[in-house]
């Protein structure tokens, strides 16, 4: 019933599955000689929250770092396969990773605001990289981003304070605002709540549900309840024999948590390992 209601809303927000969203084809990733991901293929739907779950070390973080070409920032890391963002392969020769990252924003495991910058400058950092200079436009964009991140009311009187003066949960929402300010199409979140308390966690989860109206969201989490609460689709990764991560199952979150197709998925979500 619920899924059907969502379907009827789909045409308004989604022009067509073939053009928007992310199509991952036979993605392999290595750290030096160690393979971290093997042959991962899936399609991430636009304006949906997709969660990536699995035990520690199964390649969840590596997977989403491949979606905005952050994986290759680590020395010795390399990637093989295709990641089509709106139909265009981000690993095609001649594609500038800097441009990819402007379209695919990222929020990290631990809040990492720039400590030497004010709250305002933290949010403006990405806009300044894009060469936005006019002060009026800048403050509008910063306010919009902070409002989207549900942080504006808490920080509007302390925009000039250091970003590191905020609480942990506020810092993480500041990092979300910073990523949203450049108006990306996709937002990647790498265990965004793992360093936060339950109250701050639930605020971030509310935010994730609200943000999918405008953004495609991929969230890595080690917390299965969180995946069940926030996501529409779930991907389950597991280490193979050589410790390389493989995609075991991918489907609608509801179906996966109530009636998984693969017995390893069932074992994991019922807490028999991991």
């Amino acid at each position, binding site marked *: 019933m619920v899924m059907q209601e969502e379907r009827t809303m789909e045409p308004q927000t989604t022009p067509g599955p073939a053009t928007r969203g992310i199509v991952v084809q036979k993605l392999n990733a290595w750290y030096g000689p160690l393979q971290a991901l093997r042959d991962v293929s899936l399609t991430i739907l636009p304006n949906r929250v997709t969660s990536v779950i699995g035990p520690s070390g199964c390649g969840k973080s590596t997977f989403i770092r491949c979606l*905005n070409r*952050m994986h290759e920032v680590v*020395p010795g890391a390399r990637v093989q396969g295709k990641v089509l963002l709106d139909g265009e392969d981000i690993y095609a020769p001649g594609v500038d990773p800097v441009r990819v*990252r402007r379209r695919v924003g990222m929020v990290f495991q631990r809040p990492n605001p*720039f*400590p030497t910058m004010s709250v305002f400058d933290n949010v403006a950092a990405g806009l300044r990289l894009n060469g936005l200079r006019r002060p009026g436009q800048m403050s509008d964009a910063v306010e919009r981003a902070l409002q989207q991140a549900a942080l504006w009311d808490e920080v509007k009187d302390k925009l000039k304070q250091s970003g590191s003066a905020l609480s942990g949960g506020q810092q993480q929402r500041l990092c979300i605002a910073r990523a949203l300010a450049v108006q990306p199409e996709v937002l990647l979140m790498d265990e965004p709540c793992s360093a936060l308390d339950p109250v701050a966690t639930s605020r971030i989860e509310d935010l994730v549900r609200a943000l999918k109206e405008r953004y495609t969201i991929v969230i890595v989490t080690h917390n299965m309840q969180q995946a069940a609460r926030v996501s529409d689709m779930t991907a389950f990764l597991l280490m193979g024999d050589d410790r390389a991560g493989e995609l075991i199952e991918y489907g609608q979150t509801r179906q996966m948590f109530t009636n998984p197709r693969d017995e390893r998925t069932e074992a994991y979500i019922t807490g028999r390992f991991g």
Partner: protein
Amino acid sequence: MARAPHPQEVHAPVWWWRARFRRPASPGDWVFQTIALLAALSLVGLLVAMTLYLLNAAWPAVTRFGLGFLTSSTWDPVQEVFGALPAVYGTLLTSAIAMLVAIPVSLGVAIFLAELAPPWLRAPASFLVEMLAAIPSVVLGLWGLFVMVPVIRDPVERWLGSSLGFLPLFQGPPFGVGFLAGGLILAIMALPIITAVARDTLAAVPSSQREAMLALGATRWEAISRAVLPYARSGIVAAGILGLGRALGETMAVTMVIGNGYQVTARLFAPGNTMASKIATEFNEASGDLYIGSLVELALVLFAITLMVNVVGRLLVRWTVAKARVGGQ
């Protein structure tokens, strides 16, 4: 933010003393603590004794010239009239030249070593930079005199004189030896320490800072200049101060290339002296309480300036660190 001090803090020294010395936990502990305390005190004692000795030896000059010692440019052992201004000026000028050259170069090398160099190159390149610090001062001075100074005379000074000669800085005959040569040799000597400290500071910047900027769509250079360098700025300031400390006090190599003049002039090609080089040049032949006293007073002034630089440097570091943590957790 001021907070009410804990009672224990008010009497901290007393409390500390009692906790350690009134009721020793074991005799071994007591002996060890006493030895450590004496060692610490002897260091303070040495510093005080040295200052007192210097003051005592300098006293004839201090009483004779007063504050005029710092403003006079005459240094005449025959008439026994001594003034320190040209030496103070020489020290400050050569150190300024050294910092102007060494800080950008060191920062560039440090950024290369910490951020850009391929991993296999980092260790050997760092090692080479640190080896530069191991070259004895006198060896560097000899190299400076026979290799660097001729190059500075021609083409460097000739070219500067003909193209930028309208500035007072680059007027006058190109001697080769002089303030410019002194400043450049100091730059070479300050480079390893500034580079090493700056590199360590940059390497200590968490990768999450770098990645945060990269993930916003920054180029490598933007990530370094907008995230890494600001994060590391207090350490970079500290590196500069350490380099300045080295440059102010350095003696042998400067003495060999600065040309032994004694003047206050804007002309960088002119021969001059620093406080350290003046002392090194003349201490052997100084006779009479006033002459010796004047040299020792020069040493005291140098001591005071380096002390001031270190204090200001430390305050600056503490201030920038505190500012980075405004209202911190």
